[in-house]
């Protein structure tokens, strides 16, 4: 078996094994460490020696042994320190049978909810989800997020401490909390996806892996919650967005806007799957923000050329999105769609209130959209000034490069 295939298998098994351990022993912190060690041992041994007969049971056994060793040394330390006889822990007698307990999807769900616990800052939710549910090593996560391994290792350790301190339990959230908690899980998966998708240089390989990992976890979540429309919507949105990957950058790594992308390079398989998912979800679910965004992406995907895009349909969908999830970024995209139907001045009129809102006034995306609409309106001087303002405000190198090129094209 290749190490790539072993790695894929390990990532699938990671949350199942962690679920078994946490259910048996509690102590999320210690169990998570033990599972990471077992995954590491498997990653070294399996490609060389072949797969064990029951890979999942192998991992459970090895992880339990690590946990036991950890407890024994802790136990011995305490014995030395206080010289009090402590009863041999009961778990040591209960070695797991090779293939007991079928893999439980509930465990993966519970882990996702635990890792996206509201007591954690978002960056910690992301890191912990990738490690505990995604089965990624700390070094891999650190490389993907371009921080030193020591930084990421501390972030994960702190996240685990906080989860325990918050008294988080390994259970599914109550129905009262469920939507909000699921919303946090979906947000984390979407953030992981975007982190990978928007990468255009640097440690590109590792970051691109994040996209694949986010899609894999969204797929798993969809398998576990097949009747949740927003889960289907998020998966569809990821697939439809990721389909552009090959076309979104030019030969020199420069960003290519949607309207100028070579659509023959879009991944038709991913497009078809995304469209099918969102179309089906919308027939039985009240539309949520991810479904509507996926529906918008689907309309773009169905147009053979940018010129044949069904803009009135997109305007209607943005109107729905603005109603169910009002947010300045939605207004920005809505303004572009309105401009395509009713002319650039109509789009610019929609932007006006954002310029007076402190939260958005200095944002580079507002300046970039204004610039684009002014250019469409033929106002070259103002368009150029707005592109330059956007270039100054962005903290992304590829975006700055793109915006400066657009400004240069309009130089007098």
């Amino acid at each position, binding site marked *: 078996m290749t190490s790539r295939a072993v790695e894929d298998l390990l990532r699938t098994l990671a949350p199942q094994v962690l679920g078994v351990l946490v259910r048996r022993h509690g102590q999320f912190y210690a169990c998570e460490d033990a599972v990471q060690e077992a995954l590491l041992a498997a990653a070294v041994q399996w490609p060389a020696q072949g797969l064990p007969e029951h890979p999942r049971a192998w991992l459970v056994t090895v992880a339990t042994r690590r946990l036991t060793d950890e407890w024994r040394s802790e136990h011995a330390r305490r014995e030395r320190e206080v010289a009090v006889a402590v009863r041999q822990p009961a778990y040591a007698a209960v070695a797991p049978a090779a293939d007991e307990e079928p893999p439980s999807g509930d465990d993966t769900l519970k882990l996702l909810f635990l890792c996206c616990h509201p007591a954690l800052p978002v960056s910690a939710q992301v890191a912990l989800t990738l490690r505990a549910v995604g089965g990624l090593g700390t070094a891999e996560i650190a490389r993907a997020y371009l921080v030193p391994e020591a930084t990421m290792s501390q972030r994960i350790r*702190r996240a685990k401490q906080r989860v325990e301190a918050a008294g988080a339990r390994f259970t599914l959230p109550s129905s009262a909390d469920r939507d909000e908690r699921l919303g946090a899980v979906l947000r984390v998966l979407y953030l992981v996806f975007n982190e990978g998708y928007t990468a255009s240089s640097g440690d590109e390989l590792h970051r691109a892996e994040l996209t694949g990992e986010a899609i894999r976890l969204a797929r798993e979540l969809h398998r576990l919650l097949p009747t949740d429309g927003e889960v289907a919507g998020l998966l569809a949105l990821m697939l439809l967005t990721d389909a552009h990957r090959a076309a979104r950058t030019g030969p020199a790594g420069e960003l290519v*806007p949607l309207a100028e992308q070579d659509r023959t390079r879009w991944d038709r398989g991913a497009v078809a799957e995304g469209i099918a998912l969102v179309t089906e979800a919308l027939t039985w679910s009240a539309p949520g923000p991810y479904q509507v965004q996926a529906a918008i992406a689907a309309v773009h995907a169905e147009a053979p050329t940018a010129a044949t895009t069904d803009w009135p349909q997109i305007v209607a969908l943005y109107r729905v999105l603005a109603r169910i999830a009002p947010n300045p970024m939605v207004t920005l995209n809505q303004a572009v769609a309105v401009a395509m139907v009713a002319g650039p001045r109509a789009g610019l009129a929609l932007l006006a209130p954002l310029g007076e809102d402190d939260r958005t006034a200095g944002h580079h995306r507002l300046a970039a959209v204004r610039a684009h609409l002014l250019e469409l309106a033929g106002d070259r001087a103002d368009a150029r000034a707005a592109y330059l303002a956007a270039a100054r405000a962005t903290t*992304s190198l590829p975006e700055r490069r793109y915006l400066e090129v657009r400004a240069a094209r309009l130089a007098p």
Partner: protein
Amino acid sequence: MKYMLLIWNRPGFADELTEAERNAIFGEVDVIMKELTESGELVGGDALAHPSQTRTVRPAAGGTEITDGPFVESKEQFAGYLTVDCDTPERAAEIAARWPDVRHGFGVLEVRAVMEQAGTEM
């Protein structure tokens, strides 16, 4: 989001401090660095040698010219930096506000966003 906190201070300010004051300042820095390490926010940082040890390289007719001393003539000089990865710009500014140079009036900290390699097509 990563931010670089640039420390600008008056060279030699420490010469006027007592040993106890100096130790107290190092102690404050240790506390902040420990906290940032434990929170998983610290990405890196360095303190720089005294500005008198600087060489400035600039373009000159027919090539380059190298002179001793810093590029910017000012009372405050660039003394070091730390890079943090935190959730909000407010958090980065809060870290800067606690740095001893700011608290004791030896200098200022500049909080600069670090450019990302990622970008959205528009």
